[in-house]
């Protein structure tokens, strides 16, 4: 607050307290009334009798005035004066966050040194991991971890970057970045069609075998670099297995052709800062437990 507003607030607050006191004092007694039954006040023909309120009632008013002074000494209220308790919303929030950390952190820490494989069998640990998952990961992978187009299913046995506990944890903590380069300017339409047929064949779909053969030639010349000779993918690059009929970006012929022509970019953001070590450990255990029960 600037100096002006500081004094503006202080003066109004002080005038209010003094004003309340003055009002009480002013209305406490009435002069000039004749000794008798009524106070002399008449409203629409209704006379006010002198039925005094109890004295303690008046004292309550004075006590609340004293209370307000005590409050203004202890808590912020008088302009820029912070109060002797130096209370603030930020402090209170920080204290509550610290208190919550103190309460919950030991629960997370309890499992920090348990190996993931064991943790995945402990119900309390996986339930905790699940709650972190449905709060943090559901946006992309879905609440049930079965993925959405572009975001992999974590409940099956197919892994882009490997399904061992260490690999899953690395994906969560440091993130992953997968890139399928665009081949639209390199390959002809016939070659793309051939590839689509060949890839469909790898996943066990019925295709035009002649066309698929031309696709295999292209695959062996270009695609094997990342996806491997046997098309089973490469977890070092996050290159998917193309033989299991599991599709990150939908499995229709048109979508596969689009992937080949335009390429794809997938990113799993790093969660080291957001979750921290202990909670990442628990989420890893939960994700691991989904496909290793």
């Amino acid at each position, binding site marked *: 607050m600037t100096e002006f507003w500081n004094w503006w607030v202080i003066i109004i607050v002080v005038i209010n307290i003094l004003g309340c006191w003055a009002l009480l004092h002013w209305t406490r007694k009435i002069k000039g009334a004749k000794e008798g039954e009524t106070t002399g006040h008449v409203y629409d023909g209704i006379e006010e009798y002198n039925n005094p309120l109890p004295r303690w*009632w008046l004292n309550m008013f004075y006590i609340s005035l004293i209370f307000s002074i005590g409050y203004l000494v202890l808590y912020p209220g008088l302009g820029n004066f912070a109060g002797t308790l130096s209370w603030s919303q930020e402090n209170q929030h920080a204290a509550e966050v610290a208190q919550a950390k103190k309460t919950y952190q030991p629960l997370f820490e309890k499992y920090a040194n348990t190996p993931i494989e064991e943790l995945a069998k402990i119900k309390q640990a996986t339930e905790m991991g699940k709650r972190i998952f449905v709060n943090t990961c559901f946006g992309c992978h879905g*609440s049930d971890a*079965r993925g959405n187009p572009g975001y992999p299913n974590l409940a099956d046995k197919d892994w882009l970057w490997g399904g061992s506990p260490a690999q899953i944890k690395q994906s969560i903590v440091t993130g992953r970045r997968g890139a399928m380069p665009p081949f639209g300017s390199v390959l002809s339409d016939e070659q793309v069609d051939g590839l689509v047929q060949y890839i469909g064949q790898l996943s066990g779909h019925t295709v035009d075998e002649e066309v698929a053969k031309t696709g295999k030639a292209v695959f062996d010349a270009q695609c094997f670099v990342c996806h491997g000779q046997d098309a089973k993918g490469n977890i070092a690059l996050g290159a998917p297995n193309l033989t299991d009929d599991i599709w990150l970006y939908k499995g229709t012929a048109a979508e596969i052709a689009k992937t080949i022509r335009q390429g794809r970019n997938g990113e799993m953001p790093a969660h080291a800062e957001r979750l921290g070590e202990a909670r990442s450990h628990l989420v890893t255990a939960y994700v691991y437990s989904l496909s290793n029960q």
Partner: protein
Amino acid sequence: MAKSKRNATDVIDLYAKQDKIYPRQVHGLFARLRILSVLALLGFYYLAPWFTWNEKQAILLDLPARQFHLFGVTFWPQDFIYLTLLLVICAVGLFLFTAIAGRLWCGYACPQTVWTETFMWIEQFVEGDRNKRMRLDKKQWGAEKILRKTVKHALWISFALFTGYTFVGYFTPIRELWDGILTLSLGPWEWFWIGLYSLATYGNAGHLREQVCLHMCPYARFQSAMFDPDTLIISYDEQRGENRGRRKKSSDYKSQGLGDCIDCKQCVHVCPTGIDIRDGLQYECIACAACVDVCENVMSQMGYPKGLIKYTTEHSELGKPTKFLRARTLLYTTLFVSLISIFIYLVASRTPLDVNVIRDRNNLFTETFSGDIENTYQLKVLNMSQTSNEYTLSLSGVEGASIIGKTRFSLSAGEVLTLPLRVRAPRDKLTRRSNDIFFKINQVGLQQQRHTSKAKFLGPAR
């Protein structure tokens, strides 16, 4: 009303120290009814926390855990509607009883009356009746006065402390609380609440007394809105009583122009709010009927007929018949009975299960390779009962829809389970973009305990 010091310039102080009221002890029918009421109500209050049910405290309002345990049933914050309804029933009940019998509540059942009555018994026991008490208060401080006052306040404070302890015993297991007091190991809040409720009991029942009814109670101020000429009131029969005056017992008072009132002022002396009932119906009157009891005694001693001060109605006083069945009472009774029926039905048909269905919003729907439509949900299921149960989950509302995920699960008492699952439905069965879908949860072994939650299942435009 109290007289404030008024000097020659006629300055009136609008606030005055209130005169202390010394009610005389009274015996009679209504006093006995009040004693019964006090014993029943306070007996329940002090004993109820000690009852056990299924090896747990029968009534335990566990605020930190947000669970009310009442005779083997646990109520959760989700059940607050029942408490709301119960309070509405209490309010309508108060209206009904007020319309029929006036301030029945004030005279016999209000905590202020009940505890004040108990405190007055203690006072009577230590300091004696009205005259003795007044004499004692006027006396100089001496050994007897110090002794009697000390004993009275010590008894009051002990009783108040026990009241505060019992009150907190409804919120913290009362046996553990006792151990905690003996070992001085209670938390600061338990000490605070015991202290506050003890202080409130001591202050209200020992010192404030009628001040609460006259200056603090809202019911005292609005109860007159429920009154009509057929409502029971306590009234002095002015026709019969006036002119009041003293007389010899066997004298022919009627020839002296006197009525039945002998102006003994007993009705004023027994009044806990310090009014004279002969001035007519006043808002200060809490309808305790102490004046009725005492006047009956006086009338029978004088050999006069009873009922100079009695329960009556305005219509009856005017010589007209009193109508118990009238629009007001019929309306209140109908409301009262139907609300109670609704309450009983709701509590009896309550499913101790809370289910929240949260649809994943980031992705409207997912299309599978085979063209089926999928929506993903989180179910939060809370077992509100006191036992571990097994549940099954099923769907309805969307034809051909199936659940991918767990459909059978168990929950221990009070456990919340997050159940992520996916629902898949064939595309050609979806008639709209937004379809109602119902998740049904059945407790295994209990067919009637079914909980249904409605949610949306989204699909593509057709």
